[in-house]
């Protein structure tokens, strides 16, 4: 039996593509609802509770041996390679499984006999292809050794010897740390229950007779888990959960920044910053980017390292899934997210929530740098609590500026405003310079009509962003060339789309009217894309030159399939 892994940023969808030969819809994010109200203790910042510096006195008194001691990485094996001795908080004697009032931690056992087996059938009409999959079994494995502590449990020397015990310790300790931060500092009791965490998750796939890990960790709300009558492998997961997997050489549970990130998603909840909505610029998916930005910010602020996933996301080696290569580029990749990067709106927007989040999280890190950890965290958290499902960069920036004013006065408000303005986040128009389209190797996506229903637009779907360019003096013809394909993975098919042009840098504006098919826009000229050449040509009539200066083009997808634009260029005549 073999073990295989999936590479980062090449999702399971792509990895499965060779198996299923299936096309895919572009997903849109929706929210969930709950009628469970929660109330936290009161917190009011004051001079007493918000000191101006972050000095912490270290107690050097030796710890007694009858405490739940363990050795963990303070951050991860790369950033802090020496193990640190800690006391596992909130565990009651007699010590055993890592289950406390705020966490239930288990690792997944690869056991073909006990794992739940299910069948995935592709195709249909009797001619389809099926594969069997078997899920691993969540179990508690970490237990005290002869000295009554967990100190004898150390990091695995290789993936083959990873029995999950050290991953459980990392997970439990860092979950307590971030839980206590939110509760002790801000009175947030939303997670005062044993949040499920499962490490070392892998799935066995029949076609390749191997267990497959995934370079990923995720937060999954209970609404997505509890409704399965068969239970599958998740019958023992009773509420929201954070789920961790890994690659052949990296266990994501060994990275505290990833644990804090997923825990913060759980704290933000499944019904805040999850929306995708339509605004006057097209489709707005920035609430999801904000969700990622806050998860990154609080993770980085807690580790005091402004980079996420230094261990887990860097030095990623492309691999295969069930023997099928999943990437053309086999170079080692670094995907850690850097909150000190010079990201700016709209230049760095790509339409993918994790990538786009870096623009906003960088501004949040600037706030922390300006105000210090404690005051910075307080400003950011106070703002987060006031955000809705459809809050975007503009909403969140305005709310954070207001939070700074309420908490610390007019001078603080000005500083925060300046920080957001420096990254153009106060009122960013989503018009991306043409030379940046497809930048960072992430295609610029325009959803198809089959994923926007009911559709207020008459027969088309606009993109998440528009494309901007500058027309030189004396130009009478503009040709926009696109590297564009319809369907999953550029799987071919006719591209049916229009370019809607408008002078100015503000972009085409939409008015959605009231009901299906009633939307209008203020574009000056609409031109159909030439499917053969993948170009859109804007030509002035009667020999009159086009207005020089900035122009915007909105790409309207009139087909059912999602369009993926990998690059774009403009020629002027």
């Amino acid at each position, binding site marked *: 039996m073999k073990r295989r892994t999936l590479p980062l940023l090449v*999702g399971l969808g792509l990895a499965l593509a060779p198996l299923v030969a299936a096309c895919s819809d572009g997903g849109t994010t929706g929210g969930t609802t709950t009628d469970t109200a929660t109330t936290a203790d009161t917190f009011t910042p004051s001079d007493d509770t918000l000191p101006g510096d972050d000095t912490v006195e270290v107690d050097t008194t030796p710890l007694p041996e009858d405490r739940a001691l363990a050795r963990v990485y303070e951050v991860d094996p790369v950033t802090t390679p020496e193990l640190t001795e800690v006391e596992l908080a909130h565990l009651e004697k007699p010590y055993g499984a890592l289950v406390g009032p705020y966490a239930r931690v288990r690792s997944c056992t690869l056991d073909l006999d006990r794992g739940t087996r299910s069948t995935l059938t592709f195709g249909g009409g009797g001619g389809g292809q099926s594969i069997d999959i078997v899920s691993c079994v969540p179990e508690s494995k970490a237990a005290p050794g002869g000295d009554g502590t967990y100190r004898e449990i150390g990091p695995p020397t290789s993936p083959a010897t990873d029995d999950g015990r050290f991953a459980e310790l990392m997970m439990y300790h860092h979950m307590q740390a971030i839980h206590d931060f939110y509760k002790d500092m801000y009175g947030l009791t939303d997670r005062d229950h044993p949040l499920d965490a499962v490490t070392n998750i892998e799935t066995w796939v029949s076609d390749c007779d191997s267990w497959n890990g995934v370079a990923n960790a995720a937060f999954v709300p209970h609404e997505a888990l509890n409704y399965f009558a068969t239970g599958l492998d998740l019958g023992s997961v009773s509420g929201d959960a954070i789920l961790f997997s890994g690659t052949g050489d990296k266990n994501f549970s060994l990275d505290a920044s990833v644990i804090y990130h997923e825990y913060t998603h759980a704290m933000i909840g499944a019904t*805040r910053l999850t929306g995708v909505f339509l605004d006057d610029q097209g489709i707005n998916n920035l609430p999801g980017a904000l969700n990622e930005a806050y998860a990154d910010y609080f993770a980085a602020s807690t580790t005091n390292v402004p980079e996420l996933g230094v261990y887990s996301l860097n030095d990623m080696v492309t691999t295969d899934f069930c023997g099928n290569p999943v990437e053309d580029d086999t170079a080692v990749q670094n995907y850690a997210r850097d909150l000190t990067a010079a990201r700016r709106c709209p230049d760095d927007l790509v339409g993918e929530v994790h990538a786009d989040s870096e623009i906003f999280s960088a501004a949040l890190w600037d706030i922390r740098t300006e105000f210090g950890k404690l005051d910075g965290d307080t400003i950011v958290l106070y703002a987060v609590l006031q955000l*809705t499902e459809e809050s975007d960069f503009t909403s969140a920036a305005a709310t954070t500026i207001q939070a700074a004013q309420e908490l610390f006065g007019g001078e603080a408000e000005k500083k925060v405003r300046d920080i957001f303005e420096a990254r153009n986040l106060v009122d960013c128009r989503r018009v991306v310079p043409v030379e940046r389209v497809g930048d960072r190797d992430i295609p610029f996506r325009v959803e198809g009509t089959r994923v926007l229903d009911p559709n*207020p637009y008459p027969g088309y779907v606009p993109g998440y962003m528009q494309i901007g360019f500058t027309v030189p003096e004396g130009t009478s013809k503009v040709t926009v060339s696109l590297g564009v394909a319809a369907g999953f993975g550029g799987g071919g098919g006719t591209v049916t789309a229009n370019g809607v042009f408008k002078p100015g840098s503000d972009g085409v504006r939409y008015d959605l009217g009231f009901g299906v098919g009633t939307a209008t826009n203020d574009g000056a000229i609409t031109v159909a894309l030439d499917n053969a050449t993948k170009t859109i040509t804007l030509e002035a009539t009667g020999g009159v030159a086009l207005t020089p200066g900035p122009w915007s083009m909105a790409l309207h997808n009139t087909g059912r399939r999602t369009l993926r634009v990998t690059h774009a260029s403009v020629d002027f005549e």
Partner: protein
Amino acid sequence: MLLRTLAAGAAALALAGTAVAGTPSPTTLATREAAIHARLGADVAIRWDAMKTSPRSLRNLAVPTAGATPADRAARFVRGERDLLRLDGDVVAVETRAFRGHVVRLQQTFAGVPVEGRSVVVKLDEGARVTSVTSDLGPLSVPTPATEITPAEAQAAVSARYAVAATGTPTRVVVANASAGRFAWKVPAMVMPVTGLFWVWVDTETGRVLRTAPAGSDQRLTSLPLRDAEVAR
């Protein structure tokens, strides 16, 4: 709880006697702004949702409230200002957090059914006055279905279109794209245990798939694999 709200919603629809609610007012933005200032105070700072002609945020408020709890106070305020906030239907409190007073998050409902992606957050100060509002609300048109498919039929529709290993029990919601809303079954769908969990919204009247989304954050699989017949379409 759900059964109760569904029953209440059905009753509300029957009384309304119409398939569409929330016809947009012809009132101009300037008139709306004047109305907000007249009712809530001249210093109120408004940020508009240009699409919905409804306020996305109101700041510098100091509006007294009545009610037994912060959630009750916030809900009463939103209901009382439904015209200014452009609330069609009702709201239900889903979260109250104490932080310099209270922050209450409310979910919009229509005919007793949760409206996906539409919430409103009301900030109350220590004196229980509303100081700010952040809102997703806006005009909403939701046709009443002539007929409805069953939850089992919704699950079957998902399985027919997507290569999923299992589907879970559907819940009834409203899906809205701007003002255009539809009643839908929200179906949990699993492609791969643990790593491939999705929501699929299925129109309760037509059985069409309205949208899909990964369930939760950071799911590795971001799109549902279609079955061959769907790929060909």
